[in-house]
């Protein structure tokens, strides 16, 4: 990272579901344009809460969140999305009662003019969705749902996409496809911030990584360095995959 303003700058963030009991306790994270950044850490480290606070789904109690230099701390979600962030929650990330096409229209809710064009782009990017556009999202497999969730989050052309455990429940093959997609997105100009349990595979496709523990920054570094870091390896990259 150079001296330029990062795309996303989270500075000393405190956030949690219950006021006065923050789960995220002073975390700082930065994401530059064209970067894939992965956050790893044990269960209860506050990874998901951090993402939700960035999106405005969890109240912020202290610290600052800026997107491209603009303060977005405490904005309601729909305004954070409008400011240029796409979000894929970990679970229930598609509308199962809506069709694939309707899911994408919902994702493009903030668009005024370019809806048809973005729909075509989404179908071009994920052909499997195009074939099923009139079917309910509940008919999709786990991997297809993840693709729909990502396509949905991309409808508004965000500068940053935030993924909460995008490979949870997917086979290693599909997980690698998701990570490759993340890489491709970053190269196409959409920065990626993700939380992952599948730390090793995620870091391999990332530029940088953060290790959180107990709501605080523990280790920060280039992804390649984290993969080589003995402490990280012992705690998170060990032979076995972490339980979700």
């Amino acid at each position, binding site marked *: 990272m150079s001296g330029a303003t990062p795309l996303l700058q989270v500075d000393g963030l405190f956030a949690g579901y219950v006021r006065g009991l923050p789960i995220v306790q002073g975390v700082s994270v930065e994401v530059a344009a064209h970067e894939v950044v992965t956050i790893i850490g044990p269960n209860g480290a506050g990874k998901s809460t951090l993402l939700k606070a960035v999106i405005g789904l969890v109240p912020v109690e202290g610290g600052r969140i800026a997107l491209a230099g603009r303060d977005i701390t405490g904005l309601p979600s729909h305004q954070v999305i409008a400011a240029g962030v796409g979000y894929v929650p970990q*679970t*229930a*990330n598609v509308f199962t009662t809506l069709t694939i096409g309707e899911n994408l229209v919902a994702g493009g809710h903030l668009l005024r003019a370019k809806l048809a064009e973005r729909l075509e782009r989404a179908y071009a990017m994920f052909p499997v969705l195009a074939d099923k556009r009139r079917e309910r999202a509940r008919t999709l497999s786990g991997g297809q749902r993840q693709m729909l969730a990502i396509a949905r989050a991309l409808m508004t052309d965000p500068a940053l996409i935030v993924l909460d455990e995008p490979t949870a429940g997917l086979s290693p093959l599909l997980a690698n496809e998701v990570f490759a997609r993340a890489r491709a997105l970053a190269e196409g100009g959409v920065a990626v911030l993700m939380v992952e349990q599948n730390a090793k595979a995620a870091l391999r496709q990332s530029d940088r990584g953060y290790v959180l523990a107990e709501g605080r920054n523990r280790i920060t570094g280039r992804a390649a360095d984290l993969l080589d870091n003995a402490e990280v390896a012992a705690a998170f990259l060990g032979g076995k995959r972490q339980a979700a």
Partner: protein
Amino acid sequence: MIGQALTDGVLTGAVIGLGAIGVSFTMQIMRFANFSHAELLTWGGYLALLIVGFIGAGAPTAGLSFGWQLLAAALLAAALTGLLAWMIDRLVFRRLRGSGAHHLTLVFASFGLGLVMRHLVVLLWGHESRFYTRELQIANEVLPGIRVLPDQIFILLLTLLIVAALHLFLTYSRTGIAMRAAAESPGLSQACGIDVERVIRNTWLIGGGLAALAGVFTGLTPQLNPENGASLLLALFSAAILGGIGSLPGAVVGGLFVGIAENVMLLVVSPGFKQAMPFMLLLLVLVLRPQGLFGERREGDR
């Protein structure tokens, strides 16, 4: 006999369905049973009466007991009642939602609110029944042994038209899709950039407006009374639950079921039993299909 009962059932059922749409949508999107919804019917009916007091009900037109003025009054009352419902949300329900109140707290609040709304009507307009128009109508024999008032046919057609328009709106419009998205998952729809408070506002405007029309229709055939809404309360809930919470066709079909069941059962059991009929039907349907006739289970629902 049975033909007339079925016809009467369809006529009352259509109005119940119209009123039940708001109950169903509120329950789906805000996750609470709004017991004050029935009073929106009453308020809509009386607001239309207020407007009719200024512009009149109009000269009888095309066999109906009223002219375009009553229709205009009904539409204006629908708009006002929608706004009233939204205002009540801002004053009462939104505050409770904001403070993280339990769903049951909202249910009880709606109960109290309903009492206040009903007695305000009594205070402002009195106990005795009121009429939009004193015009007498003669029921036409549309089929052998089946008599229907022209007003009733008009109400049925208008209801069908409104429901069809609402269906198109929910299915194809961006706002309609956003409403259905928020109905399934408020959290995920926020992550799509959908302003859930705006969806809630739309829900009140639509639910309140339709309740007002249902209120005007019950006031037209036969009369306006402060108890009009309250007496339909249980029928509205039965229709909404029977059809499946959150489903527009469900609310309408549920309303028709309830209306027909009430009227047909009158042929075989004592009228004192009339109000129990919707519940017998409800129990039967819920045993066979817990999510209601048209309801969809959300994934993750317990």
